[in-house]
């Protein structure tokens, strides 16, 4: 193994859980434990048997030298270079710091179901709704609503993901923001960091019903809805998921594992939240169009927003008078739909009520 000044940092960035999984997948067998400090693994090759020691705690005083030794043995026995192993096993934190960007690693434990492959549509829809969730959380963080619910460009620029690498031998993918964090931004967390932190906390809170309810509610209906779609896509694999968030900021980062049953419970909670908390807009403007027969309306608010959509049954049943070109205060329900492959969502509007507007 080639050693340079970054070796210690790289070794410290290796995920020990991931390393144990890698050893098991590579034909190594766990033989015994050295107290609660390390596990000993062996592998037969021909008449020979090799042994490696895997520390259980990165705080062990001889952690670095044990890991260095183990990586050396794997190079010789498995013919896998230390660089390849590190690319597979290093934590999101390592890639975040070396790339100066926010990083999320997703790992689906399909091997526990004796599968070696993951359906493409599960991965693609999971990634699509992950991106949509980050966009909508980013929008909540900047507190800006834009025309037609479109995600502001600065949110998209800050939180758009690209693929860094996949994990060979398991269903995992490492994603990073396309935009790097500039040196000046290190004085305070930029939008991308704030957004990823909220997302990681949302995943972490998904371990408890109350925690998820509180967190998802604070991130608004659109984020809850997109996160629900993300978890629904993941749940099709019927396995646990590990989310590892790494940030260039020292104090930031979080790793969470959600078991399959927890994912299903979280989806139920999110369903309730989205149902209980439909997003509503109350705005004043002019009714441009209204047709009770085909239940369509068009409304231009005084602040320049255009709303086109359906009229609720209640308005029609109540015989509400709708006078075109008149001023009203409209109560409109917003339903978010992900319709594009980029993770953006479009708004559908439903007119819930119209109250004549009086100029003061």
């Amino acid at each position, binding site marked *: *193994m080639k050693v340079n000044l970054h*070796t210690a940092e790289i070794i410290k960035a290796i995920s020990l859980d991931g390393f144990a999984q890698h050893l098991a997948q590579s034909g190594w067998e766990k033989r015994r434990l050295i107290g609660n400090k390390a596990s000993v693994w062996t592998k037969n090759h021909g008449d020979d048997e090799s042994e490696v020691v895997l520390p259980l705690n990165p705080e062990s*005083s*001889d952690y*670095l*030298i044990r890991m260095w030794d183990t990586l050396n043995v794997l190079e010789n026995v498995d013919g896998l270079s230390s660089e390849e192993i590190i690319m597979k096993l290093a934590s999101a934190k390592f890639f975040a710091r070396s790339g100066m960007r926010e990083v999320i690693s997703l790992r689906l434990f399909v091997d526990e179901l004796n599968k070696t492959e993951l359906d493409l549509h599960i991965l693609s829809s999971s990634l699509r709704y992950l991106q949509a969730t980050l966009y909508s959380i980013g929008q909540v963080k900047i507190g800006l609503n834009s025309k037609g619910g479109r995600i502001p460009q600065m949110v998209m620029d800050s939180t758009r993901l690209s693929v860094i690498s996949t994990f060979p031998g398991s269903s995992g993918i490492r994603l990073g923001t396309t935009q790097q964090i500039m040196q000046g931004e290190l004085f305070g967390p930029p939008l991308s960091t704030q957004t990823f932190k909220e997302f990681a906390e949302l995943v972490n809170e998904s371990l408890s019903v109350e925690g998820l309810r509180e967190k998802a509610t604070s991130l608004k209906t659109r984020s809850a809805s997109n996160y629900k779609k993300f978890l629904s896509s993941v749940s099709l694999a019927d396995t646990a998921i590990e989310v590892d968030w790494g940030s260039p900021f020292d104090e930031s980062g979080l790793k969470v594992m959600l078991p399959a049953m927890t994912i299903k419970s979280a989806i139920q909670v999110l369903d309730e939240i989205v149902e209980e908390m439909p997003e509503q807009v109350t705005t004043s403007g002019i009714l441009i169009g209204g047709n009770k027969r085909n239940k369509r309306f068009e409304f231009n608010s005084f602040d320049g927003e255009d709303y086109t959509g359906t009229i609720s049954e209640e308005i029609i049943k109540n015989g509400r008078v709708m006078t075109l070109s008149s001023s009203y205060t409209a109560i409109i329900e917003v339903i978010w739909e992900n319709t594009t492959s980029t993770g953006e969502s479009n708004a559908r509007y439903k007119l819930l009520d119209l109250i004549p507007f009086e100029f003061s």
Partner: protein
Amino acid sequence: MELNFHKEEFSLAYVHAVVAVAGYVFQAAPRQVDMDGVDVLVKETSGRRSSLDIQIKCTADNSILNIDKLSYPVKISTYKRLSADCITPVILVVVLVPKTIDKWILFSEEELSLKGCGYWLSLSGYPSNYNRESVTISIPRSNIFNVDNLCSIIEKVSRGEGL
């Protein structure tokens, strides 16, 4: 070349020679970076495949040699590392060499003689020390780092006994 470099290389050669004759695998740790203060890994090739870490120091200061012990000062960071709980046992080997470098080695057609002696000590279980700079440790002169003693150290490690 600096004298310290000569000392490092010579003490490594001393330990390597003892490990080779004892029949264990000698593996030098990378020296470009600090690998937990370990200089050498010694491994059994069979049996329980026990292993031992060694940190090596070399000195030409023979004033450390007393009647029955060596009084050797180590940095507090070294003391903490060597006395900490760890996965693989670690020992300190202090190689005491003659004052002048031309006396370190003798060779002829019949022999190669390394002049100097290594002494070993395990600091496992030593109490915390709150000195700021260094701690002076006592190494019994009977703890010579030779083939017999290395074999008995490895046997103890193999049986899970303390050193």
